[in-house]
């Protein structure tokens, strides 16, 4: 969503008409919410840290290599689902308090989406191997047992055909 907003801000509408600018509410985006430029001096860093509600020692912007977010801080990725469900959050549906800085991809780490920071009983590799083992068992059983069918102890039904003689079990007279 943040990337979409940035992309929309960079497009140029109506290039022939000088001075006319078209603005749209792209997902409720507001130009005042755009991050500032990458902070270079220590004063700019302190100001940016205070703006985002972080301590100076916690503040770390994304590297300014053309793909960064300006002075937006690099926050640890914590999914909403792995946060304490019993704590009295200000926004329980996001498990977030008021004023807490938001990760740029926060819409991906919500309660109903990706849980990347959860500590599970079985690691991803364990889960994958268990799945593959079970599926291999099923497929192996199918593959080796498909030809061996249960049946009642009867031979196929005899239908009358041209040139084929069928016999009963009574003696010929």
């Amino acid at each position, binding site marked *: 969503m943040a990337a979409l907003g940035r992309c929309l801000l960079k497009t140029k509408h109506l290039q022939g008409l000088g001075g006319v600018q078209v603005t749209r509410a792209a997902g409720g985006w507001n130009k005042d919410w755009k991050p500032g430029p990458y902070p270079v001096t220590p004063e700019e860093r302190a100001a940016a840290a205070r703006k985002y509600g972080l301590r100076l020692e916690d503040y770390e912007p994304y590297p300014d290599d053309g793909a960064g977010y300006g002075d937006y801080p690099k926050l640890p990725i914590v999914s909403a689902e792995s946060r304490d469900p019993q704590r009295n959050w200000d926004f329980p549906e996001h498990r977030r308090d008021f004023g807490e800085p938001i990760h740029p991809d926060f819409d991906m780490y919500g309660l109903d989406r990706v849980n990347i920071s959860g500590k599970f009983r079985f690691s991803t590799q364990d889960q994958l191997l268990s799945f593959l083992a079970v599926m291999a068992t099923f497929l192996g059983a199918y593959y080796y047992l498909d030809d*061996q069918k249960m049946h009642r102890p009867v031979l*196929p*039904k*005899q*239908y009358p055909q041209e040139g084929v003689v069928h016999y009963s079990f009574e003696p010929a007279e």
Partner: protein
Amino acid sequence: MGQVYTQFLGEPAVQPDFTKGPTFDPLYGFPEGRKERQMLATPEEMESAQLPLKSRDYCAHLAIQSRACRQRVWPLVYKCGHEKHAYLNCQYEDYVMRMKEYERERRLLERAKRKAAKAAQEEEEE
């Protein structure tokens, strides 16, 4: 259960192929011969009665009679008990014949296996 046990664990080597007919000579082992099965309904009769292909077996004549009776007396279908039972008894006999064929096939396979084992044993002794 017993059939499954015998088929896979008990004697898997001498089980007949249930998808194919008898592999041995049908008249072998019958000193008095065997009566041939008679097809009493002609193809024209079966076609005229629009009998399903599955039912065009050696009991087809009784199938046609049973259906004709039903068509005559419907909805008082209870009146067709004799024809219905004649047809079902014919089907039963046919199924019993299938079971006998399977058993005959199985016993002949066992006998063939015994003969092969005896021949191999005699070769060893030589």
